[in-house]
């Protein structure tokens, strides 16, 4: 694309009016680099969230997200705007993540270790009171525990739960991005919820058993 086009002051740069994605896409297709840069700024957070939700590997997220935008830039002239730009972009992101996982032959991290009694009681507090942890360190630890539980689920269940409940994608968006029927997404999400809670209960029981055993050992 012509770099000279960026020398123009575009409406979205001067802040005169809000330019929608369609116009930015049209400008990008005509060679305006600044318009594409604006599209990157608008969608970078969601693309990041989507890539993070699928990969679960913070170190690789930025590299894959950059690659997503590079692919979008190279293919934007062929984008006919029948779907929303965001949907098209998210589909590129999903394909890029799957390509990445396939090429790297990444095996999902599975944590087999059980939760400590303290961790279980912390989670119990969250589940029963709906009160999120206050301190940053407890939030980080809770996220780690959650990741451990999520790692025991099938890959698609994990992706759906993370993208819907943590990264904030709607059921409609997930259906479009993953090429699934809306009803299928709802059913899978509901079943995945049951599975993660079952994992949680199993760990809860195992921590309680561990506590009972150690108490018995102390008595002896």
């Amino acid at each position: 694309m012509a770099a000279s086009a960026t020398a123009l002051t575009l409406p979205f740069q001067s802040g005169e009016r809000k330019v929608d994605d369609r116009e930015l896409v049209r400008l990008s297709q005509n060679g305006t680099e600044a318009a594409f840069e604006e599209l990157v700024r608008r969608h970078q957070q969601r693309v990041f969230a989507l890539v993070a939700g699928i990969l679960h590997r913070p170190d690789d997220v930025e590299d894959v997200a950059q690659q997503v935008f590079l692919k979008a830039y190279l293919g934007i002239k062929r984008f006919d705007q029948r779907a929303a730009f965001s949907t098209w972009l998210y589909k590129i992101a999903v394909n890029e993540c799957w390509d990445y996982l396939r090429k790297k032959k990444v095996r999902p991290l599975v944590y087999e270790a059980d939760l400590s009694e303290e961790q279980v009681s912390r989670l119990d507090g969250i589940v029963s009171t709906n009160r999120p942890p206050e301190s940053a360190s407890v939030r980080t630890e809770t996220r780690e525990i959650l990741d451990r539980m999520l790692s025991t689920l099938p890959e698609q269940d994990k992706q759906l739960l993370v993208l819907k409940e943590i990264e904030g994608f709607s059921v409609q968006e997930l259906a479009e991005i993953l090429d699934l029927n809306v009803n299928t997404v709802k059913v899978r999400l509901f079943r995945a919820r049951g599975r993660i809670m079952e994992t949680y209960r199993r760990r809860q029981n195992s921590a309680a058993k561990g506590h009972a055993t150690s108490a018995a050992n102390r008595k002896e």
Partner: protein
Amino acid sequence: MPRDTGFGSVACEGYEALLEDYLNGELSGADARVASEHWQNCAACRDALQNAAASLRLLRTAEPSADPGPGFAHMVMARIRTAETEYDNAGHANFWQPFVSLGWRFVASATFAVGLLVSYNAGLGHRLQPAGTQVRPIQSLDLFAPEPAGAPANRSEVLMMVADNSHAKF
């Protein structure tokens, strides 16, 4: 009918999507009526709904990924420019590539042919000649000179030779 999939109590097939909608606060009208009538009478669906609500509370404690910040867009644009430059360079290389490879093939074939001729001339040619045959060196290259005659065998040939020489003089 509730199903047992090894993950404890699960909702009846056909009601899971409705329960998911209910959980997300998206159930209204006739669907809401049908759903509430069902789970008032179905313990498995009530359990599954409670479980799902607990999962919602658990999962929403996690924070979403942070915004990568303003530097990210600059990095993306820099990567795009690099990729474009590489693509352009690769494009030029691709245009000349067939000609270059054709040239190299020609050079290789010519070298091989010359090598073959030289080796034939140097060794193989000599070996093919019959033993005892001597090659007379050519003294001078006069293309218009008459063929050198051999020694006359008899008197008639001597006379013919003298007659030829006399004819050449006049």
